[in-house]
């Protein structure tokens, strides 16, 4: 049997010296070739552009999904989750469970040192809250809008957010929850 080796054509490309040196350094540290790292980076850029996105935005999204995975979350089919939620009343115990899940996630953001960057927290929350929500976090208010969230899902998410804020040493002063809309006012603890 004959096998035919596919020879990849190569070309040279100019890069800033300091950037090329850094790539070279990383290649040495990770036991890879500069060739593979550069190809991988350029291919990732192509993936991003073909999806109509920027490279930093898909890097951010990839990181956030990994963050959720490492923080003990799982991916479940929305329909199955909805039917589970519908079949269970949101008892204080379930509500507390959501709240403590938010606390854990907040602590995880803290450990990862991204809790102080409002934009990063917003992006991470967008990733872990279903229904492609619009999330705005300011100094004293957290707003989450997602018309796709059902009544019970909204309640669950509000408990999650409350737990998250508390874990970041913020005291909830007011909360308004209606289907698909959550507004939570808070203040720094001790203020």
């Amino acid at each position: 049997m004959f096998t035919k080796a596919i020879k990849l054509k190569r070309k040279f490309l100019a890069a800033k010296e300091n950037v090329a040196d850094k790539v070279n350094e990383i290649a040495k540290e990770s036991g890879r070739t500069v060739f593979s790292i550069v190809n991988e980076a350029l291919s990732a850029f192509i993936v991003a552009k073909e999806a109509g996105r920027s490279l930093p935005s898909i890097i951010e999204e990839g990181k956030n999904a990994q963050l959720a995975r490492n923080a003990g979350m799982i991916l479940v089919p929305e329909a199955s989750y909805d039917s589970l939620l519908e079949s269970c009343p949101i008892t204080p115990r379930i509500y507390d469970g959501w709240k403590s899940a938010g606390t854990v996630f907040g602590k995880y953001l803290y450990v990862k040192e991204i809790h102080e960057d409002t934009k990063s927290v917003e992006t991470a929350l967008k990733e872990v809250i279903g229904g492609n929500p619009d999330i705005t976090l300011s100094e004293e208010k957290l707003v989450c809008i997602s018309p796709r969230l059902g009544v019970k899902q909204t309640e669950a998410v509000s408990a999650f957010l409350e737990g998250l804020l508390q874990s970041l040493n913020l005291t909830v002063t007011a909360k308004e929850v209606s289907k698909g809309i959550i507004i939570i006012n808070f203040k720094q603890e001790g203020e």
Partner: protein
Amino acid sequence: MPDKVEKKLVVVRSDILEKIQEMARKENKTLFAIVNEILQDALMASESRATIGDLARFYQLMKVEKDSGALIIPADLFLKLIRRSEYNEELKSEWFLAGEWYGKYLTAKFERPLDVLPALLSTCLWHLSEVKVEVRAEGKTLVNVIAPNIDQQVLELTGKYLEGMMNALGYRAVKSDIVRGVAILEFLRRL
């Protein structure tokens, strides 16, 4: 007079370079500028101990999942909901149907869904330690799951989900052996 930028040459695959050149033209940027931007983004990704390629792949697979309506939720909460709900045939059938829908979604999205399945399942069913999809001769496909730390009910529901998915891809289950932490599913292509 602007400082002279020191440059270095790096080697790259010519097919990838051609695509980047085309994208640079569309964005009205020089190849040099766009390549430096990309490499700097790649260096940023490596600071978080992830490669840009891994993050881009993760993003792509997660996008397929999220577009299919998957939600990220806290694992312990999900388990609580399952324990509180009535674990019966109806619930299993719902998971089968959710899997079936997912299988149809994959069929609509990919020309050869079975080819992307191993990467999709092992990346996105991250509550499982290992998922192996093996396409064998005579229309036989095996899906083996190892998940020693997972609740038996969740594993059974995952099995139903996979059965539903394979059903939509044209396979019927001929064996479903689910014991603590391990699921061995065997499918045969329908004629």
